[in-house]
């Protein structure tokens, strides 16, 4: 069996969530890697949109920034930033918003704003970017981040973008989509329990134990009925992902 890293498993598990022809609003970093891997493997007709206004972009290497030149050069259309948020995201044309985060709570509420008090933060994080509107206006939201007690926390210092709280109706004011429906980490896949709305463990990546996952989670992690093991990366998935990372390193002058 092929050897792979936990990060590779995470990215591949996230890519598998994306279906062909989906319209995906992509955050930079891990979401971008997963979305482009999907495009290069099982979802060749997926439509990738970045908030820089690039629609249907097909980069050969992963962008380091949301506005790398190749995103524009390979896009079906390049529109202004006001337009991408008004006509395309708010317009209700996005199936999936794919986000990373610094911190989240059990409801998929994200914090990318501050650690500590807003007025006097111990750590000032970058801030919201597109997240608040992506979280509520995309058809659904996938989240990808590395599993740790510092990332998956019991209580957030700041709600940058909304998660779905118990009993909250997605038809509520400002909501269009289902909110966060999948959380992929380097340990497993979490899905929200439909009653409690809380993210529960649906699948563990090969070799990861339930104890490890619980130990790395800041809240009392529940297990979903029928916990499964994530199928390991296929040779094809790994090859595509590694080739993508190689092209990326070369494009950004790292080799």
């Amino acid at each position: 069996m092929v050897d792979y890293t936990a990060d590779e498993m995470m990215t591949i598990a996230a890519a598998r969530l994306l279906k062909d022809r989906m319209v995906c609003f992509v955050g930079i970093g891990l979401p971008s890697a997963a979305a482009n891997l999907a495009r290069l493997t099982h979802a060749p007709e997926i439509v990738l949109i970045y908030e820089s206004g690039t629609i249907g972009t097909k980069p050969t290497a992963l962008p380091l920034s949301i506005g790398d030149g190749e995103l524009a050069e390979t896009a079906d259309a390049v529109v202004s930033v006001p337009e991408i948020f008004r006509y395309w995201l708010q317009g209700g044309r996005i199936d999936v918003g794919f986000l990373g985060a610094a911190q989240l709570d059990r409801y998929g509420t994200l914090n990318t704003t501050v650690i500590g008090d807003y007025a006097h933060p111990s750590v000032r994080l970058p801030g919201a970017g597109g997240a608040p509107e992506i979280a509520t206006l995309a058809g659904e939201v996938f989240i990808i981040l590395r599993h740790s007690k510092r990332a998956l926390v019991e209580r957030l210092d700041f709600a940058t973008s909304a998660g779905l709280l118990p009993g909250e109706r997605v038809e509520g004011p400002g909501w269009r989509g289902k909110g966060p429906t999948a959380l992929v980490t380097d340990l497993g896949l979490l899905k929200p329990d439909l009653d409690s709305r809380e993210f529960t463990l649906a699948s563990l990546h090969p070799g990861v134990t339930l104890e490890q996952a619980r130990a790395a989670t800041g809240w009392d992690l529940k297990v979903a009925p029928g916990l499964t093991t994530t199928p390991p990366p296929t040779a094809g998935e790994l090859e595509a992902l590694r080739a993508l990372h190689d092209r990326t390193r070369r494009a950004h002058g790292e080799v």
Partner: protein
Amino acid sequence: MGEITSLSEAVRELVRDGDTVAMEGFTHLIPHAAGHELIRQRKAGLTLVRMTPDLIYDQLIGMGSAKKLIFSWGGNPGVGSLHRFRDAVEKGWPQPLALEEHSHAGLANAYAAGAANLPFAVLRGYSGSDLPKHNPMIRRIRCPFTGEDLAAVPAIRPDVAVIHAQKADRKGNVLIWGIVGVQKEAVLAAKRSIVTVEEIVDRLEAPSNAVVLPSWVVSAVAPVPGGAHPSFAQGYSRRDNRFYKAWDDISRERDTFLSWMERHVLGTKDFAEYRRSLEAA
């Protein structure tokens, strides 16, 4: 009206201490050369507006030019933190920095409202976010037809907008292409504007429906080849990702930051000399 001049002259004439200044460019076409010129001319007490503060505002904030920042995402793209921004917010160095914080959607709509001479913009936004608790400039409004409750933000109307573009013709008409961000809105929302360009040409040869700013909506045009570095100008240069990574070390500590700015910005007379000083380093 689209007068072709030097960057130093344009900044001297058009940017005043205490101004609200929007230097836009969404990753692409960031007007770094103009940012340096504001620092060289010791502009102070500025309210800086920008969706993604990036290195350009990290430098202005670290050099003490800004008293307030209106923004929506303040990181070093693909790298991590903006250390000077963090130091100002977390420790008040070199001076406290007031924040007016939005989402990208909120700020993009606020620029569009400014360009359209509307006092506010309406959006489906900020639902479930704590941002409105800390930003009194995010309010709610009711649809007079459906009764729906929506978010409202005030229009951005800068004193000066500063952007970098690919081309201008000799009359001062400006052509921008590729990722165009909110630059057109920023210029149209502002009282005055400065556009640095890669080159001045006889004829723009703009394709149909291209993003063109007629000279009569621009105050000054200054040729500054490569003036977006370490950002890029599509068709002219590539993003210097290495510099974005290097900035993480340069800016992490106050003294290394200050000595770098001394040597490469305050110690040089213009952007061309700045670029040469980097190559020499």
